[in-house]
């Protein structure tokens, strides 16, 4: 079974999806570190903020963004597989409707968050 | 050689075999059942049946109607006492299958629904979308798992019956995965091996439908009855022969020729009406519809396709996509996958193809053959309900009704007879092994089995098609005799023991040649036209008509080693329906009313 996942694009997508979960974890750690720094006082917090602005950090965050976006997209794709069927008005909701609803909700939520952050920053 | 001692041996794991196994298990859990099948049971060809199973269901229907439809549909060659039992048991068995989980299609209020079918006066065909056979088979297979007394011999290929003291006492089979032989003893043996339609070229049938059980019984002196009656289903996919169920027409589909004309009205099936009407037009019986195709072709009114040949159109467009998806999902998928046609947008090109063998191993109403201890059920048997032409949806019910009968009878027998003499049975089994092994190990042959098979199916199509004449039938008989000779010179590429399907195919071909001979010789000897056996010849065309004086009789073909089969004739059991003109459409309705009036 060694290297089984390389044999088929479907498996590759699955493995990349699973691997991108590590990026989600990585970002959670970054945020956690920020929280710890905040608790350690102003100086530590400013230092963390500065570190976040470094070009390396920005490249890292961009990479995180791409990976997490991929994870989110493929995560919604798994919805019809993993959920019990949703019945509306006696009719089963089509899998692609479930997926696109998930995507739409994620995009709207992201934009809303971006808007709020933009307003606060402004 | 491996030895297994069972009480009841069942050969064939399709609908009939499984139903029989369950019947034995239910009648006495202490009986040991051996279910021998050359494929895993759910691969059996019952799986491909589409339309449904007939059984009286509605208030406005009656056993009497079902009886008359069946006997008239069979052109009065039915055993009427057996038909009577059959129609009464049909709803019982279909209901039992519902209890076992068969997902019959339902009405809005949750009851089992029924659909119209060809030659049936009232709609009485229970259906599970257009995968009725599939659901029946899987329900039976899965239910059979409940019974620990059923021991399955999956992928075991039966090569002979064991006969001792004038009774059948077991079988010899090859374990396909190893090539090892096994002797399976049994006090009763039930053959449930299905039909033999693969002796023809263009058929709806799976590769496994090779008449094994028929040939086995035949070689042991049991008659093959009414073998000349082979059903052409009128709506099959050209070239492959894959089936477009009669339910296409039951649900309202049209058959039209190259002018878009519903030609069936020209063949005693009219007049046209707006709505589908039972026993009219497209809801006529299969033999008549296939014969009408032949005439349309003669008149040059079929559509000529460069690859597919002559076809007519099965038009389902007016039924609408949603309805087609609900009622005929498999048909929809098949048209799309195999032909690239969307049946909601385009008509489907179809032509007749071989579908069913009405005849088979001659049995009485209790499913017992002339060889004590040997029973036969399902398509491999001729219990007498189909006569000269089977009505669509009677055969799935037959599997259940007579599977139960044979199971009960075989169980009764198994409890009453003493076990056989194992030593002498083993000697027989070893002789059978040597015979079958010789085919695999012999050298010096030159004939490929594919070539012999090709010549056989071509010859059967030429001689035993929808319309038949003496000359070509005789040519087929002669050709089959030659093929028998050529078969002796067969050469196999594979002489290994594990999974040697070439060897098994050769044994099948041997079976097929026997069955084909029974068909062709029975056909040439029946000098009349009845049901699916239609002739164009005779002095002044005498054979083009039904001849009740000379041929209201079953034909019985008997095996003659190394020669053509011997054909004799037996009486037909008539109880309450004397032979009458077989008419459909408006004429049929008139005849029905007259019959009713005279009965009052």
């Amino acid at each position, binding site marked *: 079974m060694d290297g089984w996942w390389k*044999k088929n694009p*479907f498996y590759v997508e699955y493995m990349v999806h699973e691997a991108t979960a590590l990026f989600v974890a990585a970002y959670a750690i970054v945020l956690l570190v920020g929280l710890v720094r905040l608790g350690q006082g102003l100086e530590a917090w400013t230092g963390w903020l500065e570190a976040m602005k470094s070009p390396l950090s920005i490249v890292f965050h961009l990479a995180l963004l791409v990976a997490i976006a991929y994870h989110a997209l493929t995560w919604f794709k798994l919805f019809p597989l993993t959920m019990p069927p949703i*019945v509306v008005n006696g009719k089963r909701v089509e899998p692609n409707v479930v997926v696109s609803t998930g995507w739409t909700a994620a995009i709207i939520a992201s934009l809303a968050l971006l808007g709020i952050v933009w307003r606060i920053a402004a | 050689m491996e030895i297994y001692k069972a009480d009841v041996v069942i050969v064939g794991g399709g609908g009939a075999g499984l139903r029989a196994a369950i019947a034995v298990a239910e009648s006495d859990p202490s009986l040991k059942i051996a279910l021998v099948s050359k494929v895993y049971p759910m*691969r059996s*060809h019952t799986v491909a049946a589409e339309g449904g199973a007939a059984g009286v269901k509605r208030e406005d229907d009656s056993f009497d109607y079902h009886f008359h439809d069946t006997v008239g549909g069979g052109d009065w060659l039915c055993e009427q006492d057996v038909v009577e039992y059959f129609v009464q048991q049909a709803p019982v068995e279909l209901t039992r299958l519902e209890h076992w989980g068969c997902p019959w299609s339902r009405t*809005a209020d*949750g009851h089992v629904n029924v659909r119209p079918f060809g030659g049936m006066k009232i709609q009485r065909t229970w259906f599970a979308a257009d995968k009725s056979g599939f659901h029946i088979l899987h329900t039976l297979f899965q239910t059979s798992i409940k019974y620990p007394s059923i021991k399955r011999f999956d992928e075991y290929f039966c090569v002979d019956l064991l006969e001792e003291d004038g009774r059948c006492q077991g079988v010899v089979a090859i374990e396909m995965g190893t090539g090892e032989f096994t002797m399976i003893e049994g006090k009763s043996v039930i053959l449930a091996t299905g039909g033999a339609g693969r002796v023809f070229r263009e058929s709806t049938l799976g590769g496994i439908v090779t008449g094994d059980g028929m040939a086995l019984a035949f070689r042991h002196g049991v008659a093959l009855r009414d073998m000349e009656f082979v059903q052409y289903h009128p709506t099959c996919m050209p070239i492959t022969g894959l089936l477009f169920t009669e339910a296409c027409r039951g649900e309202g589909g049209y058959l039209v020729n190259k002018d878009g004309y519903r030609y069936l009205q020209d063949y005693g099936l009219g007049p046209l009406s707006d709505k589908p009407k039972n026993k009219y037009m497209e809801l006529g019986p299969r033999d008549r519809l296939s014969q009408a195709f032949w005439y349309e072709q003669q008149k040059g009114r079929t559509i000529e396709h460069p690859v597919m040949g002559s076809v007519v159109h099965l038009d389902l467009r007016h039924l609408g996509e949603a309805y087609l998806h609900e009622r005929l999902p498999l048909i929809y998928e098949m048209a799309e996958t195999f032909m690239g046609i969307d049946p909601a947008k385009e008509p489907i090109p179809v032509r007749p193809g071989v579908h069913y063998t009405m005849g088979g191993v001659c049995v009485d109403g209790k499913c017992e053959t002339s060889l004590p201890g040997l029973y036969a059920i399902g398509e491999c048997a001729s219990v007498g309900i189909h006569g000269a032409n089977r009505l669509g949806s009677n055969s799935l019910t037959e599997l259940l009704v007579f599977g139960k009968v044979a199971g009960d009878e075989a169980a009764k027998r198994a409890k009453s007879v003493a076990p056989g003499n194992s030593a002498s049975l083993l000697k027989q089994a070893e002789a059978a092994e040597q015979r079958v092994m010789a085919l695999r190990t012999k050298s010096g042959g030159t004939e490929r089995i594919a070539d012999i098979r090709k010549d056989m199916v071509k010859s059967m199509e030429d001689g035993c098609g929808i319309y038949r004449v003496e000359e070509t039938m005789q040519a087929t008989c002669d050709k089959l005799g030659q093929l028998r000779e050529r078969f002796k010179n067969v050469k196999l590429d594979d002489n290994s023991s594990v999974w040697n399907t070439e060897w098994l195919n050769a044994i099948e071909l041997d079976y097929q040649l026997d069955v084909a001979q029974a068909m062709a010789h029975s056909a040439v000897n029946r000098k009349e036209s009845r049901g699916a056996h239609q002739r164009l010849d005779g002095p002044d065309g005498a054979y083009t008509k039904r001849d009740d004086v000379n041929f209201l009789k079953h034909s019985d073909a008997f095996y003659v080693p190394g020669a053509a089969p011997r054909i004799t004739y037996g009486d037909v059991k008539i109880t309450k329906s004397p032979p009458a003109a077989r008419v459909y459409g408006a004429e049929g309705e008139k005849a029905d009313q007259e019959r009713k009036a005279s009965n009052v």
Partner: protein
Amino acid sequence: MSEQKVIEIEVLRYLPESDQAPRSEVYKVPFTDDMSVLQGAQYIKDHFDGSLTFRWSCRMAICGSCGMMINGIPKLSCETFIRDYYPNRITIEALANFPIEKDLVVDLSGFIEKLEAIQPYIIPKEPRTVEQGEYIQTPAQFAEYIQFTSCINCTLCYAACPQVGLNPEFIGPAAIALAHRYNMDSRDGGQAQRMELLASEDGVYNCSAVGYCSEVCPKHVDPGNAVNINKINAAKDYFLRFLSPKGGAK
């Protein structure tokens, strides 16, 4: 008639009595556009080498016999067409994740044992006699399970499932879908009996939601969905055990 085209079919051969290991053989097969890959294999058997071994019967994607890996993807060879690969070579191999018996024939005994183990029959909730007639099943009740009745046992989903490859004891997509089919049937009351196996070490939690089983299913059964729904059911059952004296899963 169109000009005869020829396709190369590469077959993974294995004759256990003479081959140490599987080997490839290439055949040049003339074909017409209506020919399936199965017909290609039949052509080879009829004309080139009678020892080529594969299972087949119905030719119409309902008997479930003729599954094989076609260019690495599990498919029913009867409904896969040569024209869709031409002019490239077609590679056919035995279904993945099963032991090969000979050429394209795999050992299905393990799969059959799994099917049998999940008790795939109605365990009546309320027994009924034939005289009482059929059970009533509303369209909504019917819709709950009908999709899961369509499995033809072709085992393509087992060939598609990497978890089956890693743990051959995993009862796998089709068998779990069949258990789910009976659990969801309004006539059935056997869910608790089936739960033991579904929640066992070889049960639903082997699945990591790859989802390829549902992708390759030729009958749109969506076995992956059945497996995942039963993860939820098994979890519910587990927690209900603590609450109910008799255990969960009614």
